[in-house]
């Protein structure tokens, strides 16, 4: 069967294909989608073929210090958590660890997006300093997606694809689910009966 001369990429051996995929994934910091990876071969390989090769690559690296993972915007190589103690010896400056204020703000944006600064303050019960939002914007985890049509036109914040990538998530659905909280007051009032049942009972509490 003659090889289509315009589809030279199809002529690549499986080993070479794997080599090209591996090189591309090792060189790009941003995850690569399958659509992008197909461009490497002038779209001569099907999505299924690419995915099959990616699985093979994942297997190949299984026993190393790095792993091939699939996150929101595509596939990328990253180090395994067990390597972190070693890597930290090289760079004395620690990765940022965020304060509770930052993490709570992030959680509100992640679970209730899009939200305004006012919404965040309403939930936390304290004012949100501009520096908290700036920290999250600078990290590329949140951005402004619009303005609410109320006086002052406050900016609406939402989480970004980069946020999902950085947390190894493929979508917001993979966020830990919000938990139901135990009731706060021993109620003598039926309407207020927030889930009084203990968490170990089988019945899921309802609000």
């Amino acid at each position: 069967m003659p090889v289509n001369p315009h589809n030279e990429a199809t002529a690549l051996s499986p080993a070479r294909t794997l080599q090209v995929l591996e090189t591309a994934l090792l060189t790009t910091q941003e995850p690569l989608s399958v659509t992008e990876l197909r461009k490497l071969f002038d779209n001569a390989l099907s999505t299924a073929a690419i995915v099959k090769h990616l699985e093979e690559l994942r297997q190949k690296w299984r026993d190393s210090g790095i792993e091939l993972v699939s996150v929101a915007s595509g596939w990328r190589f990253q180090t395994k958590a067990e390597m972190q103690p070693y890597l930290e010896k090289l760079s004395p400056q620690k990765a940022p660890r965020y304060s509770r204020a930052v993490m709570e703000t992030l959680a509100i944006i992640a679970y209730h997006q899009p939200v305004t600064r006012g919404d965040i303050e309403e939930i936390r019960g304290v004012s949100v300093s501009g520096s908290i939002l700036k920290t999250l914007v600078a990290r590329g985890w949140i951005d402004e997606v619009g303005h609410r049509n109320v006086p002052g036109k406050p900016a609406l914040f939402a989480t970004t694809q980069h946020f999902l990538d950085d947390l190894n998530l493929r979508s917001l659905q993979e966020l830990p689910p919000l938990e139901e909280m135990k009731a706060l007051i021993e109620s003598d009032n039926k309407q207020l009966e927030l889930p009084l049942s203990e968490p170990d009972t089988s019945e899921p509490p309802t609000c």
Partner: protein
Amino acid sequence: MSENQVIDPVAAQPVARICGEPLLEIPQDLYIPPDALEVFLDTFQGPLDLLLYLIRKHNLNILDIPMAELTQQYMTYVEMMRVDQLELAAEYLLMTALLIEIKSRMLLPVNPKAETEDERDPRAELVRRLLEYEQIKKAAERLNELPQAERDFSVIQILIEQKAAALLPDVNPDDLRNAWSAILARAKANRHHQIKREALSVRVYMSQVLRDLRGHTQIEFFQLFPASATVAEVVVIFLAILELAKELLLTVSQAQDSGVIFIHAANASQSA
């Protein structure tokens, strides 16, 4: 037992840990002793957080809080907070006001015509907010437990040969030679341009010597010669030192015959 006792932090066992921070005393009410104020402000995110803690850990009934006394106490430390934490003080104050309002409304008979839940039980709105906050607080903790890029793992990115990262302009050594040739061609065409005649190697080592001197007022002559230097390199380094001395970029001194020779950065004292 005094309600607002201050426990000696050294002797005391923490009664609880909040985010790993030991909490050394049990607040019996919302009053925060002045000495513990800063710890408290660091420990709690705000009045909702504090109230939540009191209710969850101490089964505090929000209705049993002695409001009058509490208000008195709150005012004292709100005064103290005002200096640099005015906003936060205001939020605690607001919470106090809210609690007082709830309490006062609870004392009144329920309006039989009340339609909303909030009107039937003034606690409803506060409870809703507390639960919503608690849910987010938990979510934030779990979010923080997820593996996080940079903190828990690093993304692999190795260099693409021939192409600088982030699309910075690409330069290769031949570009440099071409640029130099262009300068020369132009200089020749224009006029008898003054271009200093220097051996590259001397120039290279002049930079190296200056770098070695950086941060020192003086350095021992022999330290400028790496142990691994070849004879040719030693000669060139020496020439570089002489050249730098000639250009007044460094000075050479020797206190006595056959003594240690010191090289001083010429501008070590004056330059910024």
